[in-house]
């Protein structure tokens, strides 16, 4: 197994509020572009991270609040590793599923976007033992 050097390119803590997401998108865009992603991949990644943050706000914390979301991006070898941590009650990952796109209805697209954009999506147990840790990997094209 080749050993890849890992470099943290972004670390943010922010309240679970919709008004925060624009600056988060800008920070993610800048970091991802700086790692060599194409404009198209960057836009896709920004969307996926935004949607993952929205899922935390809407489904983990259940509403906007000052509860904290932590985002970290690491550049590892030929990929980017995104970690999103919240301190909400533990969710059941099996309930976080993309919906059938043939079932045309207004909601439920966020998880589909995340899975379309990312190469790996895993819910992990945070070191602290509480909250939720979403780890996503995207290879750099």
């Amino acid at each position, binding site marked *: 197994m080749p050993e890849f050097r890992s470099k943290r390119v972004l670390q943010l803590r922010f309240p679970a509020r919709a*008004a925060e997401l624009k600056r988060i998108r800008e920070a993610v865009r800048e970091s991802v572009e700086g790692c060599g992603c194409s404009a198209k991949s960057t836009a896709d990644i920004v969307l996926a991270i*935004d949607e993952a943050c929205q899922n935390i706000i809407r489904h983990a914390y259940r509403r906007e609040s000052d509860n904290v979301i932590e985002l970290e991006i690491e550049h590892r070898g030929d990929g980017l590793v995104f970690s999103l941590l919240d301190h909400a009650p533990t969710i059941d990952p099996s309930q976080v599923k993309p919906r059938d796109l043939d079932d045309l209805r207004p909601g439920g697209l966020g998880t589909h976007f995340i899975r379309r954009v990312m190469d790996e999506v895993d819910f992990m147990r945070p070191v602290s033992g509480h909250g939720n840790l979403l780890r996503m990997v995207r290879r750099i094209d």
Partner: protein
Amino acid sequence: MEHAVREEQGNLIVSFQGDVDLEHSPKAREVLLGCVAKGQDVFVDLSEVSYIDSSGVASLVEAFQASKQKGTRFVLVAVNAAALRVLELARLDKVFTIHETLVEGIRGGT
């Protein structure tokens, strides 16, 4: 996000500018459903939308479904590349009626 609504040849033209995101999509939804409720054909200009997320797309889907119930047209026009990419990811580019320009949209069929 900014928006504008104008009437042209009996149609309602809604244009959005900026980010149609979680913060602003409730307003977008209100504007779109309000236009559809008037019973006129609605054309949504997305040329100046810099970003749209699933909540913004959901507003479009809801208004589209409301227009179907009304029997009116709901057409997206001048969809820029960023917004089109999101519609493609949702496989909605084949569901919505999309025209390159407003003129084509108004002239076009369903």
